[in-house]
Structure formats: C-alpha cells, structure tokens
C-alpha cells in the first residue's frame, strides 16, 4: 500500500506535464517509499559471531524479525502526522528511521530539513552530567558550538523550568524532569520536523499543557510534527493525518479522526471478543471453571425500574459445584453492585456432567440511565479463586436529572 498518494501533495491533481515542471519546486520535507526494517535474530553466542561475519561480507542477517515493512508516506512543511498502534507494532522503529538513528533495510527515505527528535525518556542525555552540560551536548549533536548556543540556552532553561536542579546530574532527576529538559532541548533548536515519542505522558499536567500549547503554536507557525501517541485525544488535537501501524505494516492512513476512530473500534471489538462466553467446547478445553453461556433479559436496553434476569451455564472441570458471582459495573469499570452464590447460601444447579446452571433476577433495577456492563464470574467451589469473566453490555434508558448511577430509596421531609 503506497500511502504517499493519499496525501495532498504538490503533485496531486495536476497533469504529468506540470508534474515534470514542478520538480524544480522544493521537494517534500520528508518522504518514505516502501520503507522496511529487519532486525537480526540471534539466539546463540555462535550466532552473534556468524552475524558479524555476514554483516562484514555485506550480506544481511540470516534470521530476521521484520519490524517494519512497506511503509510509504510523505510530509510537506506544515503538516502533522500522528502515528498510532499497539505496543510492538513498529511505531518506535519508524520514528527512529525518520530521526536517522537507524537505517531502513529496504526502501528509501529522504529528509530535507533539520530533525528534532525526542525519542523515549531523556534522548541522548548522559546521566552523570548536569542538566546544563547535557544542553551543551545536545547542541553539539546538532552542530552548534557552545558559543552559538548563547541565548538559546536561557530559553531552554526557562522552558524546562527545573530551577536549581539544572545544576544537578541527570541521574538525580525524576522521569518527568528528564522529559521536561528533553522537550525543552528538542524544541528550542527550531527543528523543521519535530518527532516525539510517547513522552508527554510522563510530564505533570501543567507541563503537558505547556507542551501542547507549544506544539499548537509551532504547527500554526508552519512547523511539522510527527507524533507517536497512545492518546487519541492528543492525536486528534494536534494532527491532521494519522497512520495506524499494525504488525509493522500500514493498516490505515488518512484523516486523523477517521484513523483514530477505526483504531478505537478495532480495540473495542478485540476486547468484546475476549469477553464473550467461551461456549461449551472451549470452556471444557480450558480446563478451569468457566462461564460457557450467558443470557441477559432484556438483551440490551432496559428501562429504569424494570426487571433484569441473568441466566447462564458454568463448566466445572472436577464436577464440583462452582460459585458464581454476578455484578454490574459502569462503562468505566467502577463497580456498582456484585453478589455471589455463596454469599447467600445459594448453589448453581447441576444440569449434567461438569455442567451447572444459575439464574438471578434483579427486580426494580435502580440504576440511573446510562451504559453499564453486566459481569459474570466463575469461581472455584471455595469461592476463592476467580477463573473466568464474561461481560454483557446493557443500557438503562429513562429520563431523569438525578445524579450518580443508582437511585437510593428516599423521601423528602416537608418542612413544618
């Protein structure tokens, strides 16, 4: 999949004749074409030695892990791209390639500007050095002599806002302080492209706000941002486009809103799949106490004050009577109510070999309107170990202005 064509580039929408003439225009700030990166896999000591020989002879490594494959996109000055994906998808590898830390195994990369990269905590800081000395080091990495740094140094110190700690060795800093200094350094040297990894999450709230404000200003002034984040909010707020990397490949590329929504939908679906009842065969295969079916009535929406019935079947590997816990949590996971069979001296009914059934009715459901999850857990007969957990989404409908998530029985005393 070649993503570059999806971008509104100089060439898009023009004829080939004009295209040829346009080549005199400044090239893309950043252009990746079919970029891929393999990492050598070596398990044994001898493997390392063989790898050295292979590399010296100009061969690639024999056994490789394909961290990134066939990634293409381009960015013009002033664009911003968010990179999202699960852990281990290849996001960091991609950023490292753009930052020049590693070279792609396949494909081509062209960068026509100065890259400011903030990869992981404290990019390139030396722990023994003071904050000030590390500022000089960072400047040296960018080719600035200490004398040239001049006023920039004061800017960096002011933005990092570390007070007297700027004279302490970095190793004494908290992770948040390191990020502050790192961000201050990466931004003060006016990069053409700013690359940041998942680092903002570490700073405190006020620093995060300053970073976001800085980035917005930077983007408004025509800066180019390559942001890697697990925060869909930040990606949507700062980036016009987003790239979803999955298993080293470009899963989706486009407008930030579309890509982040697709990504979130994928996650919801993935989680929902994990919470489905296992079914009889797979419950038996699991070899632990497991809920293999769950029926909720009414299935999705109930009105406030009506009755809710939950029925289910449990697999018991040793044919002893398991304990079943049924509960309701809010969409954000806050528990509302839960009750287990052994708390009320109830037992699920045996309906066959290794199989038990349970049913519980909540009458006059006092939940306030909103989205909830109904959970059923299978526990061992002692009610100690929790083995399985199945969820079912329910929506409580109704019109009320009450606050909270459950209606408590109440009565107002009229004043006399």
């Amino acid at each position: 999949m070649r993503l570059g064509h999806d971008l509104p580039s100089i060439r898009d929408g023009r004829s080939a004749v004009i295209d040829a003439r346009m080549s005199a225009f400044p090239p893309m700030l950043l252009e990746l074409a079919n970029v891929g990166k393999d990492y050598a896999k070596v398990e044994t000591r001898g493997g390392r030695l063989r790898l050295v020989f292979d590399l010296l002879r100009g061969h690639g490594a024999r056994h490789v892990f394909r961290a990134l494959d066939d990634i293409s996109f381009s960015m013009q000055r002033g664009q911003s791209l968010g990179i999202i994906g699960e852990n281990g998808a290849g996001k960091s590898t991609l950023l490292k390639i753009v930052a020049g830390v590693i070279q792609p195994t396949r494909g081509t990369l062209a960068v026509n500007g100065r890259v400011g990269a903030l990869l992981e905590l404290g990019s390139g800081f030396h722990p023994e050095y003071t904050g000030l000395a590390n500022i000089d080091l960072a400047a040296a990495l960018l080719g600035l002599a200490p004398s040239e740094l001049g006023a920039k140094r004061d800017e960096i110190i002011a933005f990092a806002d570390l007070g007297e700690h700027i004279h302490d060795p970095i190793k004494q800093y908290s992770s948040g302080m390191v990020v502050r200094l790192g961000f201050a350094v990466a931004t003060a040297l006016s990069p053409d492209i700013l690359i940041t990894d998942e680092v903002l999450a570490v700073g405190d709230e006020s620093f995060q706000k300053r970073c976001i404000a800085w980035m917005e200003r930077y983007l408004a002034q025509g800066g180019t941002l390559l942001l890697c984040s697990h925060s869909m909010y930040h990606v949507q707020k700062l980036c016009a486009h987003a790239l979803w990397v999955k298993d080293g490949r470009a899963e989706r590329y486009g407008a930030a809103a579309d890509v982040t929504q697709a990504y979130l939908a994928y996650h919801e679906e993935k989680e929902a799949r994990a919470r489905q009842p296992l079914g009889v065969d797979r419950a038996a295969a699991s070899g632990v106490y497991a809920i293999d079916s769950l029926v909720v009535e009414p299935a999705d929406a109930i009105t406030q004050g009506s009755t809710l019935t939950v029925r289910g079947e449990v697999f018991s590997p040793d044919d002893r009577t398991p304990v079943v816990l049924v509960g309701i949590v809010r969409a954000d996971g806050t528990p509302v109510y839960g009750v287990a069979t052994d708390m009320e001296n109830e037992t699920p009914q045996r309906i066959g070999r290794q199989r038990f059934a349970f049913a519980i009715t909540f009458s006059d459901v006092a939940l306030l309107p909103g989205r909830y999850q109904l959970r059923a857990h299978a526990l061992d007969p002692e009610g100690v170990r929790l083995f399985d957990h199945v969820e079912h989404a329910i929506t409580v409908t109704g019109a009320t202005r009450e606050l909270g998530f459950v209606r408590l029985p109440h009565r107002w005393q009229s004043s006399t």
Partner: protein
Amino acid sequence: MRDSAHLHDNERKPAGGATSVRPWRQFHARNRALFVNFFRRELTTRYLGSVTGFAWALLNPLALLAVYHFVFTHIFRATGFAGQSFLAFVAMALWPWLAAQEALQRGAVSLASYAGMIRKVAFPHEIVVLASVAATFALQFIGYAAILAVLRIAGEPVHVIGLVVAIPVWIVLLVGITGLTLLLAALQVFVRDIEHVLMPLLMMLMYLTPILYPLTLVPEGMRAWVAANPFNWVVGRLRDGLLDGRVALERGDAVAVVVALMLFLGGRWVFRRLSPHFEDFV
C-alpha cells in the same frame, strides 16, 4: 539557522540510491564539536569520582616504574640495559605501552556507556571511540613529556633531538592503535568476549615485548619473533632517538607507517560496516 539540507546525517539513501550534496563544512563542524564534547567528557568522567583525579593518571605509571625498578635492579639484579640506567631504559617504553594498553581496553568498551545515545540519536559512532583513544593518549603523552624532563634534570642522558623521532613514533602508534581499537570496539558490541580476553592477552604481550628488557637479551633463535612485534619498533625507535640521539630514518620506519595505516583503515572499515547495527545490540 535553518539549512535546507541539514546537519543530521539524514540524507540517507540505501546503497545504490542517488546521493545528494551534503554541507560538508557544517557536517565537520558538528563532528568536531561532538569530538570536543566527548573528549572532555572522557577526561572528566574518568576521574570524576576519584580523589586524586588527573594526578593518578600521571602517577600510576610512575608507581609502576618504581616497582619494576625495585624488582629488577634490587631483586633480580639485572644488568646490561645497553649501558643505560634501568629507569631511563624502561621509562622510554612504559608510557607508550600503557597508552596503547589503556586505549585498547577503554576504547573497546567505550560504546557501552553511550548506549542510550546510540539508541536514540543519530551521530557518527566512531567519534566515541576516537575521543576515548585521544583522551588516553593525551594523558599518557603528558606523563611521558614530564618523565623525560625529570630524567634529564636528574642527569640521565636524554637527547632532546630525539623528539624529532619520538613525536612521529607516538603519532604512528596513535594511528595504529586507533584502528585496532575501532575494530575491537565494533566487535565488542556483538561479541562480549573481547573485553574479557583483552586484559590477559595484553598482559602476556607486555612481557613478550622488549619493554623491561633489551632485545639483545632475547635468545638468538627467538629474537626474530620478538622483533616482529610491531610494538618492538615503537620501543626501539624511542630508545634510539631519546637515549642514543640517533634520528636517521630506517627501513623499518616505512613498514611501521604502512602497518599503522593498514590497521587504521581496516579497523575503520569494519567499524563502519557494523555500526549501522549497533543500535540493536549495544
């Protein structure tokens, strides 16, 4: 200061791709700034925690020299140092040997302390090794100059004219050792054994080199082997120049220069071949 084609080594096209013009002046300015920074860092962090600081770097060879003097002249009662005093004889060779040994040992593992940077920042990795070797040589050379001055003041026959030979010999040594260190440092990233093998190997090599004894004491049949050691050339030429005042060029000098250059180019070739893969292994 914004430059269209920038300072980072980022104009990277895989082999076979078109190359673009790099702003060489700025590229070099950056590498120089980095070298100076790493060089200073080497000197300061190396002795940062120690009370004696730099002084120890200079005193360490002196202490060694005193021990050797005690053992060889008072216990073994060795004689026959080409008519020179043991102290002057050994001092000529001890400092360059220690420079080479320390440069190799420190240089071989120097990349490890820059692991964080190698993984996160784009820069030419060889600057780390170059700075490490340069720092060691700078310190040992200062010590060497100091001991020459002390010996001369103490009345030992140190020929000042010998510096005409001694300084080029040190430079050839520096070039050769730099190449060897680049080679070992690159291999060390992948094969950690280098570090552990190096120390005993250097120890053995020290006794097989005519540092504590003159070549003439080596049995005739073995002499050719000992003389083939490139370090024998370093030691011999330093003694020729500084103790005997002989400054004429010899045929061996050309060989030594070629060997040093080959070591340098070979080591650098291996280093550059392997350095793109450091990030994953360092």
